[in-house]
């Protein structure tokens, strides 16, 4: 541990590690300093200058987010000089910001507006932009961009380049003409964007948002000829409460069920069920691959196998590692599997013409919007999933309908394909898919439950960048004799920057695992680009806790023990990996490369 240094903030003494910023010392002292460009997940930028403080002995005010503590300091954060400077810098930011707050999706949740309010901005001190200067970029299925609202804080750039290693945005031009741009001013839809939406979650204003489909969903709900089925993923349930004033990590699953029914959805189903289905298919695929590699020495079969539930991750590998797509599991994500099953098996069960069914997926994710619009996602003969709705959009729909979660009773999911296991539930957290898969695969192979207390595979839990574990397969069932003594090596990465570390090793030929879970977003789906704003490491941890608690409370905690899954295979699909499964539940990928999409 490095040296601890004393810092005096407004008379409060704290100690911080040498090299820590003055801002972090202020946080430790419980002194609030306003920020716009600073974000706890991102590198230091120091461009907005609203976090100015006075440091004794320094002539000029300093940006606290960028000033490292290397000697004892006395800091003042509330002097007139500091307040006036912050106000001036805010006035300057506002002079460049064009936007009508009433019509902005971030109305009520905008960091710039909040600061303008807190700092008593009551007029434009400088001539300000009063007409739009840019056309909105609305071409992408997932991310939309309104540059008029951009304040050049560069959070999106740092998110995209440093945190996710995707490289969509960059600073273009110079001086007064600086813009945050996509290469050659292209649309986000035409470049390497993986639709993870992490930039949206970190934008302080309404410059970045997701393509909102709630109006179309309302239309369909009101159309008497259509039957609208909602499926809800685990992560929105652990987070949507934040939009209604609950603390992060409050579980509202059953209240949400009631609210969605009242909003007019004809059926409310649990995506955890489809997550269980994914585990059955993906687990089978893993065993098939291992069999081909270990027994048949088939060089064309690729190990490690990577999970394919995260559409951001899928697009990342399509863009950046197009020659390694064979490592991706061919399984569709739970969202898409569910869509395909709803418009076939379920439609028959409930006796409704699938052409009259609209499936809506409540997801924590902006990339799910792109995923459901991929041309190949029509295995049912129809668009398998019609709309991907983010947690934020759902919250807005409910508020619009006057449905506040606090007022709701608790209700269960609809039957037939209703419920998922605890294994499906933990898909929402990084490591969850791996844990769910191992709970099933280990038991399939050995006939015994995984050797972890209460089935909690703790080595793959938590927010570490890359987690590894290995599990020796011993005393296996006789049909899996070829796996006896094999040490199953697994890894879990969240955030595409961490995935890139693994992929670069794969390219070098030094990646020694059998099975790897990747989620594009930090923390897994619970930190997805469609989740409530803000996002911080603490908030993500709270959401993960909620997800793991819910898992422990569900009676069935292994995918293969879900009786509804067993019934689906018996009545419809045959067995995991069957011809029918492949038709409906598996997919293929597209080599995209790193350059512009040609129209």
């Amino acid at each position, binding site marked *: 541990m490095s040296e601890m240094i004393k810092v005096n903030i407004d008379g409060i003494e704290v100690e911080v590690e040498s090299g820590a910023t003055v801002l972090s010392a202020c946080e430790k002292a419980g002194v609030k300093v306003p920020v716009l460009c600073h974000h706890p997940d991102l590198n230091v930028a120091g461009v907005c200058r609203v976090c100015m403080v006075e440091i004794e002995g320094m002539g000029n005010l300093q940006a606290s987010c960028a000033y490292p503590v290397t000697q004892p300091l006395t800091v003042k954060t509330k002097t007139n000089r500091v307040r006036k400077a912050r106000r001036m810098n805010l006035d300057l930011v506002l002079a460049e910001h064009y936007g009508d707050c009433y019509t902005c999706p971030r109305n009520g949740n905008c960091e710039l507006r909040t600061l303008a309010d807190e700092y008593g901005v009551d007029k434009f001190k400088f001539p300000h932009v009063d007409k739009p200067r840019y056309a909105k970029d609305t071409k992408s299925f997932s991310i939309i961009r309104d540059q008029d609202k951009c304040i050049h804080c560069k959070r999106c750039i740092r998110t995209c380049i440093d945190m996710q290693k995707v490289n969509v*945005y960059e600073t*273009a031009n110079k001086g007064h003409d600086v813009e945050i741009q996509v290469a050659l001013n292209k649309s986000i839809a035409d470049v390497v964007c993986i639709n993870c939406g992490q930039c949206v979650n970190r934008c302080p204003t309404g410059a970045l948002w997701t393509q909102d489909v709630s109006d179309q969903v309302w239309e369909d709900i009101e159309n008497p000829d259509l039957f609208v089925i909602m499926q809800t993923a685990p992560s929105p349930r652990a987070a949507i409460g934040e939009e209604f004033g609950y603390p992060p990590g409050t579980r509202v699953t059953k209240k949400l069920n009631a609210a969605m029914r009242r909003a007019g959805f004809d059926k409310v189903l649990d995506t955890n069920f489809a997550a269980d289905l994914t585990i059955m298919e993906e687990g089978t695929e893993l065993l098939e691959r291992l069999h081909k590699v270990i027994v048949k020495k088939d060089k064309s079969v690729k190990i490690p196998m990577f999970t394919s539930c995260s559409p951001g991750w899928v697009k990342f590998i399509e863009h950046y590692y197009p020659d390694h797509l064979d490592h991706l599991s061919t399984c569709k994500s739970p969202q898409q599997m569910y869509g395909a099953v709803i418009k076939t098996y379920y439609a028959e069960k409930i006796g409704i013409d699938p052409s009259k069914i609209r499936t809506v997926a409540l997801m924590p994710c902006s990339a799910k919007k792109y995923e459901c619009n991929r041309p190949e996602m029509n295995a049912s003969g129809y668009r398998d999933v019609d709309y991907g709705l983010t947690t934020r959009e759902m919250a807005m729909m409910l508020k619009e309908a006057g449905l506040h979660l606090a007022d709701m009773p608790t209700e269960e999911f609809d039957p037939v394909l209703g419920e998922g296991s605890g294994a499906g539930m933990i898909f929402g957290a990084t490591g969850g898919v791996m844990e769910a898969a191992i709970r099933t695969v280990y038991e399939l192979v050995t006939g015994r439950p995984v050797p972890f207390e209460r089935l909690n595979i703790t080595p793959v839990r938590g927010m570490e960048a890359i987690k590894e574990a290995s599990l020796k397969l011993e005393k296996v069932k006789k049909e899996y004799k070829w796996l006896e003594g094999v040490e199953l090596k697994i890894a879990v990465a969240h955030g595409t920057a961490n995935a890139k570390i693994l992929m670069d090793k794969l390219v070098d030929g030094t990646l020694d695992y059998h099975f790897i879970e990747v989620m594009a977003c930090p923390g897994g789906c619970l930190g997805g680009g469609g989740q409530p704003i803000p996002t911080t490491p603490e908030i993500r941890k709270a959401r993960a806790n909620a997800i793991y608690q819910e898992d422990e409370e569900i009676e069935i905690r292994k995918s293969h023990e879900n009786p509804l899954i067993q019934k689906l295979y018996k009545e419809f699909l045959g067995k995991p990996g069957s011809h029918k499964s492949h038709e409906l539940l598996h997919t293929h990928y597209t080599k995209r490369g790193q350059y512009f999409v040609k129209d």
Partner: protein
Amino acid sequence: MSVNLERIREIFSDYSPEKGNFMVLLHDVQKACGNWLPEEALMEVSKLAKMPLNKVYGFVSFYTMFSTQPRGKHIIRVCKDGPCAVKGSLMLADLLMKELDVDMGETTDDNHFTLEETACIGTCTASPAMMIDDEVYGNVAPESLNSILKKYR
């Protein structure tokens, strides 16, 4: 014109594309492409330099000498900075716009001239100054404009 990717690869083999060389290298690529950097050229540069496209674009857009729009055979750059502006460069710019029948930043219909503004070119003592291609002209009097242009017609 179509982009000669082979030529871009040759330029790359002439330089080791390190940070310090990137500027000269891009100038050569721009010259090879006819005074501008088309999309295909930037993609090839990105591939060869192993630099993501957003960063190549960030670099290119920072410097006014690079253009991602087609430009004419000759580029006239009028200095817009303080000393030149005081000594009449704005008037020069107006005259050139009238003479060539283009707005600032535009190219003549015959693709012969492109008129641009430039930041300081370091000849403040001879303001107002302008450049045509690589040639610097100082103390430009309005009457001398035509004779200067004639050399490039």
